[in-house]
């Protein structure tokens, strides 16, 4: 006969229902014995106090054993019935019941594969997040470098502009334009003179 360990009930109650029933059985049986001993004592005492009583302790013990044997037989039979009822209706977790600590099994019945996929996805997300963080740091670093570079370039530009201002009111740009404009004319005059002198 396969024993049903009633594991789920034990998980809920913290003790096995069978132990609980055994505990009740032993306690009840002990009481039956104790009360019977008390009954026998009282009868013995009464009988011995009766004048001319021929009732012996052995006879009384015999009566006790007869009654107790009967009571025990009935007790066991009744207890089996009580145990069945209690194990079925009281110390029992109905099959459709999920204990609170197992609620997650109701919502996430995933199998092994799903779980590993989920773990992989979480790992990939973690790596992606790390990569994005890396990119962020690289971009911020470049922005930092750009700031320094731009400052330096602007300084150089400023320096150039300063040069123009140092030589008179003309800015470098105007001066350049003036020189370029006139140097072109100068050059064409020079060429002109050169050609004529060749002719001569």
């Amino acid at each position, binding site marked *: 006969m396969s024993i049903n360990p009633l594991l789920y009930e034990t998980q809920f*109650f913290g003790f096995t229902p069978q132990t609980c029933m055994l505990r009740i059985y032993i*306690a009840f049986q002990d009481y039956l014995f104790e*009360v019977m001993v008390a009954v026998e004592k009282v009868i013995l005492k009464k009988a011995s106090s009766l004048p001319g009583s021929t*009732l012996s302790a052995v006879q009384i013990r015999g*009566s006790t054993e007869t009654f107790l044997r009967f009571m025990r037989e009935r007790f066991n039979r009744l207890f089996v019935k009580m145990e069945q009822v209690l194990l079925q209706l009281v110390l029992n977790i109905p099959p459709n*019941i999920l204990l609170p600590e197992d609620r997650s099994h109701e919502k996430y019945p995933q199998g092994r594969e799903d*779980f590993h996929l989920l773990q992989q996805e979480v790992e990939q*997300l973690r790596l992606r997040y790390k990569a994005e963080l890396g990119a962020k740091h690289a971009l911020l670093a470049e922005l930092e470098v750009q700031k320094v570079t*731009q400052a330096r370039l602007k300084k150089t530009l400023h320096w150039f502009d300063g040069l123009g201002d140092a030589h008179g009111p003309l800015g470098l740009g105007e001066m350049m334009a003036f020189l370029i404009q006139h140097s072109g004319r100068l050059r064409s005059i020079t060429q002109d003179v050169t050609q004529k002198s060749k002719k001569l």
Partner: protein
Amino acid sequence: AHIPKVKLLDTVVDTFLQKLVSAGSYERFAKCYKRFYKLQPEMTRLIYDQFITQLQTSIREEVSTIKEEGNLEAVLNSLDKIVEEAEDRKEPAWRPSGIPEDDVRSTLIPYFLQQQSSLKRLVQEQERENVKLAEMVLEGRKQVLELQQQIQARKQAWQMLTQVPKTL
């Protein structure tokens, strides 16, 4: 109808006691202690009644002790509540498979799902932020290029300037 399990327990124990008492009837008792019964019928009755009262009291006290020890009333009431909440559920519920690593998995899934969604959110936020940063970097690169070109132009102008005296 849902009979509270505590009430059921008391009812079952009472029924057990009733049947035990009716099995151990006074007739049966007097029959077993026949000699004494003949000598002292009233006393026999008294002793029997005492016997029954004591037995019932002891057994009921024992049940109360067991209830207290195992905090049975509260536990059974909470079980009643769990059963009530699952009233609409008919199919058999999950039970431990006996393979702990399989069983613990479902317990962990909610936390992995939670981590998955928070990581998704973080990645998206970071991606958005990085797009903005990347735009800023591109803009910055453009500005650096322009500055370099301006300087280049200035430099050439100066070089030309220095050429002019030679040309003249």
